[in-house]
């Protein structure tokens, strides 16, 4: 069994690396929670890159239904075709379209399946997936076909805790909460994205970033991705270190509401 080691462009904690490996060996879905921008979604891509497996990504929306992830039966098309005689409407297979989960279970090779933002969907959604994720198999009722995954996909599930997930679902997952990175970790992350950035400037920017994050009662606290945008903006404008010391440029990159900007500016 290949062990997940991580890749150069994604900084992850030892704890998370061990848990990913545990999830692979124990064949359980890995549920990730954490503040936005802590790299939950990215982890699935990194796993697929490191283990050289295909990534299938299922973006869950508030309207998503669990059954759609397996397959959709296009009734309307079939009804419509039944009026004309150019297609064999008794062949139901052509009206079955596999969803992302169905695709992952039917794949010949092992894949990484990302179920992104599972909490966006209805509360019943995770419960409706229990059987398929447990058994890694599903039936297409309309055709009587049965599919079983040849290799259990590595399942990564992310949640932003917009909704509580049902206990029965949680029991089957491994759970990890990605903490917001500390300054040391954050510098490492920024370093990966901006390898040429001067050390002093980087620590100065990161220090300011944490100052803003922690000092004020913000409605939306800036996250890693916003920090990276900020560094980009500062670099592009060529602002000097001394200048950066005196003021906070491009606050709009970090803070997304007027209230928050006002709170920081007052300080």
């Amino acid at each position, binding site marked *: 069994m290949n062990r997940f080691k991580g890749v150069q462009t994604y900084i992850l904690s030892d704890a998370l690396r061990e848990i990913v490996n545990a999830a692979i060996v124990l064949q359980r879905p890995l549920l990730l929670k954490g503040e936005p921008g802590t790299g939950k979604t990215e982890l699935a891509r990194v796993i697929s890159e490191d283990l050289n497996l295909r990534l299938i990504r299922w973006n869950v929306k508030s309207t998503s239904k669990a059954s759609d992830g397996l397959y959709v039966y296009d009734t309307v098309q079939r009804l419509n075709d039944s009026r004309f005689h150019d297609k064999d409407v008794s062949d139901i297979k052509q009206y079955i379209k596999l969803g992302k989960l169905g695709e992952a279970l039917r794949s010949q090779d092992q894949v990484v399946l990302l179920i992104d933002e599972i909490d966006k969907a209805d509360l019943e959604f995770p419960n409706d997936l229990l059987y398929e994720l447990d058994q890694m198999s599903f039936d297409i009722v309309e055709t009587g076909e049965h599919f079983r995954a040849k290799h259990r996909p590595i399942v990564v599930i992310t949640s932003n805790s917009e909704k509580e997930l049902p206990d029965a679902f949680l*029991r089957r997952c491994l759970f990890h909460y990605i903490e917001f990175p500390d300054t040391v970790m954050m510098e490492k992350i920024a370093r990966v994205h901006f390898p040429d950035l001067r050390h002093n400037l980087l620590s100065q920017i990161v220090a300011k970033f944490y100052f803003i994050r922690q000092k004020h009662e913000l409605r939306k606290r800036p996250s890693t991705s916003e920090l990276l945008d900020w560094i980009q903006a500062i670099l592009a404008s060529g602002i000097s270190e001394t200048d950066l010391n005196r003021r906070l440029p491009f606050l709009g990159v970090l803070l997304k509401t007027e209230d928050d900007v006002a709170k920081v500016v007052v300080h």
Partner: protein
Amino acid sequence: MFINLFQSLRRHGVPVTFNEWMLLQKALSENLMDSSLTRFYHIARAILVKTEAHFDKFDRAFLECFGHIESNEDLIRRIEERLLQMPPLQLTEEERLMVEKLSLEEVRERFLERLRNQDDEAHVGGNKAIGVGGRSPYGAWGYNPAGVRIGQNESRMRSAVQIAEQRSFRNYRDDIVLDTRSIKTVLSYIRQVVREGPRDTLDVEGTIDATCRNAGELEFIWDRAKKKRIKLILLMDAGGTMAPHTELVSRLFSAAKDIVKDLRFYYFHNCVYQELYTDIWQLKSVATRKVLDQTSRNYKVIIVGDAYMAPSELLSRNGAIDFWYRNDRPGIEWLIDIRKRFKKVIWLNPEPQQWWSSTPSTRMIQRIFPMFELTLSGMQSGARTLIKQ
């Protein structure tokens, strides 16, 4: 030995089930932890604990079971401390040449072996064991160019016991107060399924039926999708004693606005009388009677207040705290009216529960409404009461 952890977790209120426990056994037998306590900590937590709200409980249970265990990291630190206390060794030129012979690889290999054989007594000036001031390549302040210095670099990994001791997830516990997102989670729990919205779901049965009636020409029948809905009235105390809780109440309010489409909200001052206010400054008002009469019984009602007032405010005519305010019915009668009008009413109290019994007004209100703490676990119990039939 791990069964203690299982029991300790349950004692601390982490809902660990047998299945999860068996999974942990499987992880152990697959040697995923590689005999490292730190790895065990992380993997066991991932398997046994499913919400960050319980991480702190896990930490405490972990400390209870493993707090006394010394990990490798601890041992190395102790060796280092011992080494620091010892006097340095002086060598002659001749002796120095003799010890410069070992290569780094050899040194490294033997180090581990020797560490295993060595008992934990301080060791000074020998040739073999790990200690200080010796000629062995292992230790500190000794003399050997290829020697392994123990404990020079800061340990990169914190030990599991240290992590647990830090209890950095204390803030995620569910009995502390809430942020907007967790309030939303609780509120969405009270929503119930109804058919609503545009007719955009194909009613297959209906379509086939209609198409047949239409002599085979397609006729689509659409239905409304099932959605989860809640109708909610929020009554908020904006009185003076509520000032410390303003932030919390406004969080509840903004969460409710986001998630509840049919939200009605009113303010009151300490207790409800014949008028409710539609703004927090209590300038615009609407008759309580009218609200009671014109709102469907199906609305669920959440009253937020500290229930802390003089008994007269609750029991007397003209008892309202505002001197100029005249109420010809005591507040408690209005509260009972609310209770009778709506099927489901709860009272959320931002004050800690242990204080309630010492406040007469709180005790009286508790007899009218089921009262819950305005914390995550309090709101969850409240939500359960609201959806109970």
